[in-house]
C-alpha cells in the first residue's frame, strides 16, 4: 500500500467527496413538487379521463355506433347498444365505459372514425364509489364539459385523433378533415 492510498484510507477522502456533493445540493432549489397544493400540468395528449366530444352544432355526441372502439379495446370495457334506422344509419342507445377496467391505451381514440371519443388531460377523478367511475353516455358528455370549462384555449384538438407522421391516406375521411373542436362554454 502506497502512502497515497494509506492517506486516502485514513482521511476518508471518498466519503468526504460524497458529503461535499450532498452539501452542494443543500443550496440549490428543490426539484420535488408538493403535489396536492402544487399541481402539475400534463403534456398535451396525456391519456386521462374519458369524454365524449360534444358536437357544437347539435349539442350531442358525435358517435355513429360503428363499434370499432369496442372491438379494439384490449380490456373490453366498452359496451354499446344501437338500433338501425330505415336508411341503414345507426342510432346510439347505450354507450358505457367501465373506467375501472380501462388500461388507458388510447386505442379507442385512435380508431374512432369521427373523432367522437377522447381521453382528456384531466387526471384527478378518484372517487369513493364505483358507480361514479362507470361512465355512461350522459356522464361522458358531462366529463367533456368539465374538461373544456377549465381549458384556456378556444379550440381543442387531441393528437391521437390524427397522429403525426402517419400517411393520411390510411385514415377515414372523418379523421382527415377533423378540425380543432371549438369550445363554447355558453352552450354547455
Amino acid at each position: 500500500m502506497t502512502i497515497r492510498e494509506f492517506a486516502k484510507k485514513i482521511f476518508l477522502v471518498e466519503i468526504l467527496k460524497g458529503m461535499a456533493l450532498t452539501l452542494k445540493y443543500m443550496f440549490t432549489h428543490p426539484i420535488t413538487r408538493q403535489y396536492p397544493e402544487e399541481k402539475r400540468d400534463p403534456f398535451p395528449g396525456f391519456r386521462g379521463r374519458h369524454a365524449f366530444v360534444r358536437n357544437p352544432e347539435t349539442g350531442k355526441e358525435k358517435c355513429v355506433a360503428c363499434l370499432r372502439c369496442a372491438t379494439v379495446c384490449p380490456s373490453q370495457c366498452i359496451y354499446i347498444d344501437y338500433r338501425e334506422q330505415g336508411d341503414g344509419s345507426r342510432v346510439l342507445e347505450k354507450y358505457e365505459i367501465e373506467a375501472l377496467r380501462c388500461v388507458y391505451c388510447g386505442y379507442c381514440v385512435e380508431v374512432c372514425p369521427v373523432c367522437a371519443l377522447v381521453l382528456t388531460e384531466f387526471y384527478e377523478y378518484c372517487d369513493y364509489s364505483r358507480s361514479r367511475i362507470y361512465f355512461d353516455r350522459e356522464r361522458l358528455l358531462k366529463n367533456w364539459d368539465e374538461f373544456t370549462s377549465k381549458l384556456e384555449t378556444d379550440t381543442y384538438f387531441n393528437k391521437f385523433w390524427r397522429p403525426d407522421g402517419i400517411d393520411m391516406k390510411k385514415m377515414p375521411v372523418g379523421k382527415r378533415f377533423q378540425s380543432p373542436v371549438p369550445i363554447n362554454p355558453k352552450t354547455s
Partner: protein
Amino acid sequence: MKTTAKELQTKELTISMGPQHPATHGVLRLVLDLDGETVVKCTPYVGYLHRGVEKLSENRTYTSALPLMDRLDYISSMANDIGYCVALERLFGIEVPKRAKYIRTIMAEMTRISSHIIWLGTHALDIGAMTVFLYSFREREWLLDLFEMTCGARLTVSYPRIGGVRTDVNSEFLESLYKFTEEFPKRIEEYETLIDQNRIWLQRTKGIGVISVEDAINWGLTGPTLRGSGIDYDVRKHKPYDAYDEVEFEVPVGKNGDVYDRYRCRMEELRQSNHIIRQCIEGMPECTVLADNALELDMPAEGPKKLEADMSLEHAFILLSEDREMVLPEGEIYSAVEVPKGELGFYIISDGSGRPYRMRVRAPSFVHVSVLPKLCEGHLVADTIANIGTIDVVLGECDR
C-alpha cells in the same frame, strides 16, 4: 465447542423472506434455511404476480395484445413493446420505415437508462446508500416526462405499433432529449462520486455473489448479469434489430462476475446508451413512421366465414376450416431483443388468424431468479439482499 453448541440447542432456522419484504423488489418470496447468519438453503417461490399474459394474448388480436406487453416489465415497458413488435414484423415480413426505427432505438435506450437508474437507486438503497436513490429519480423524471410528451403516458406507454410507431416525435422532444444527453454524463459522475469508491459499498459488493463464466452460461443468464462475468454477448450487437446496426457503441464487460462488476457494467451501459441516443438524434431521417402494410389497430381476428343456415352442422365445420381465408401468413418465430434486464424473447406461432395460436415469453427475470440459490447459499443473510438487487429482477416479467 461442540458441547456448547449442543447445550445451547442451536438448530437451523427456516424463515420466509417476502413476498412483502421491501428489498425483494416486488413480490418475490425466498424461503431461507439459516444456520446463524449463514444461508444454508435458499428456495425462491415465484408466481405471486401471475396474470397469464401468454394465455390472455391468445384471445386478442396481435395489435390488441400489445398493451399487455407493457405490463411484463413495467419499468421498461417501451422495450417490451418493441420486442413484441420486432418479433411480429419478422414473422410477417413488415419493413419498418427508417425514421420509426430510429425513434424506436431512441425509446429503447431511454428505457434502458431509466431502468438502470431505478435499479441503481433501489440497489444502493437496499445496501444502505440512500442519496443515490434520490438523485437517480431526478433523471428518471426527466425521461418519463419525455415519454409523456410523445405518447401520453409515463409508464404503460403502448407506443410502438406493429410496423412502426404510433405517432411521430416533435422537435421539442428531440431538443429536450439532446439537452438530456449533454447533462447526463455529469449526473453519472455524481452517482459515481457517491458510491464508486465508498468503502462501505465496496465491502458490500466486491467478491459477493460471484458467478463464474461456465455457470453464467449454463444458467442461461443474459444482459448485464452475464456480461459482468466477462462474456461479450449482446443481442443488439450480435443480432441487430431496429437501428442498432447503424450506430456505434461498445458492449461493456466485467471481469470477476461479482456484484461490483455488474454494477460497473450497468454504469458503463448508461454512458453507451447516452451515446446511442445522441447518434440517433443527429442522424434522424425524415419520413413517415408507419409502414404501408402495418397491421391495423382494428384488424380482423378471423377471416370471413362462410356459413349457411340450411346446411348440416358437419358441413359447416368443413367450410369453416377449409374455406377460411387467411388474415395473415402462417408460421412460427423466435425473436429476441435486448431489454435492460437481458434477452427478452418472444416465440410466436401464427395459424393464419389474427390472433397468436401460441405465444411464449422468454423473460430474463425468470431465468435470473433461478440462479439466486446458487448466489446466496453459503453466504450471509445480508448478502442475499445484494444478490437480489444485482440480478435486477422485476417480478411482473418473471411471473408474467
